[in-house]
C-alpha cells in the first residue's frame, strides 16, 4: 500500500510509449489513405482508443494510482456511452 502513487516509470518506458504513439499515428494516417469503406471510421476510432489507453495508463499514471480514479474515469466513459446510445436511439427511431 505504501508504494501506491509512488511508483515511477523510467524515462525509457515513457520514450517507448511515445514511439508507439507516433507509430500508431503513422498507421492511422496510412490506413485513412486506403479505401476501406465503412470500416475506415471504425479502424480510426479503434486506433484512437488504443492511443488513449496508453496515454491514460502510462503518461497519466492511472495504472498505479488510487483505484477510485479508475472509477471516476470508468464512470465518465460509461456516462458518455449511455448518452451516445440514448441519443442515437432517439435520432434513429423518432
Amino acid at each position, binding site marked *: *500500500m*505504501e508504494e*501506491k*502513487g*509512488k511508483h*515511477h*516509470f*523510467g*524515462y525509457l518506458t*515513457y*520514450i517507448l*510509449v*511515445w514511439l508507439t*504513439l*507516433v507509430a500508431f*499515428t503513422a498507421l*492511422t*494516417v496510412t490506413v*485513412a*489513405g486506403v*479505401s476501406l469503406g465503412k470500416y*475506415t471510421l471504425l479502424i*480510426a*476510432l479503434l*486506433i*484512437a482508443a488504443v*492511443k*488513449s489507453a496508453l*496515454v*491514460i495508463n*502510462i*503518461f*497519466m*499514471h492511472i495504472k498505479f*494510482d*488510487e483505484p*477510485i*480514479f479508475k472509477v*471516476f*474515469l470508468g*464512470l*465518465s*466513459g460509461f*456516462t*458518455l456511452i449511455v*448518452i*451516445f446510445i440514448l*441519443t*442515437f436511439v432517439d*435520432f434513429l427511431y423518432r
Partner: protein
Amino acid sequence: MTDQMETSSNSGNAHIENHRDDIGAKMGMWLFLFTEVLLFGGMFLIYAVYRYKYPDQFHIAAMELNTNIGTLNTIILLTSSLTVAISISALQKGSRIISLIMLSATLLFAIMFLINKYFEWATKFEHGIYPGSKVLLNKPNGQILFFGLYFVMTGLHALHVVIGMVILTFMLVFILRKSVTSDNYVKLENSGLYWHLVDLIWIFLFPLFYLIQ
C-alpha cells in the same frame, strides 16, 4: 475506501510537518477532468449525429483540411505529453534541472502547436471559410455544420492548450522558487494530468476531422 486512502496519504507525507492531502488534490483534478470529458463528449455527440446525417457533405468539407498540418500537430502534442511526463518523473527523482528543461520543452511544443494552428486557420480564412462567411453560408447544410464543429471544437481545444501553457508556466516558476519540489510535486502532477487530457482530446479530434477521405 476512506481508511485505505488516509493510510496511504499519511505514509506518503509522514515526514512533512505541514498538512497536505496529495490524494485529495489529485482526486479533485480527476473529478475536474471528468467534467472536461463530458464537455467535449457533448460536442463529439453533436459531431456523431450530424456526420451520420450528412456523411457525404462531411467527406467533401473535410477535403479542405490540411492532413499534413494535422499529423504534424498530433506528433507535436504527443511529444509534449512525453516531455511533461519526463519532467514529473525527473522532479520525483530529484533532478530539478532535467525537470525544468523538459517543462520548457513542453511549453515550446505548445507554442509550435499554436503557430501551426494559426497558419491552418489563416488559410481557411483566406479561402473565405470562417463562421458566418458568405462562402460558407452558400455551401450545403452538412458542410456548414462540419466547419462550424471544426472551428468550435479545435478552437476550444486550442483554448485548452493556451490555458495549459499558463498553468505549466506557473509550475516552471514554482519549481524555480522551490515551492514545487521533489517531495511536494502534486501541483506539477495535476498540471501534467491536464496537459495529457488536452493530448487525449486531440487524439480523437485528429482522425475525426483530418482523416475523412
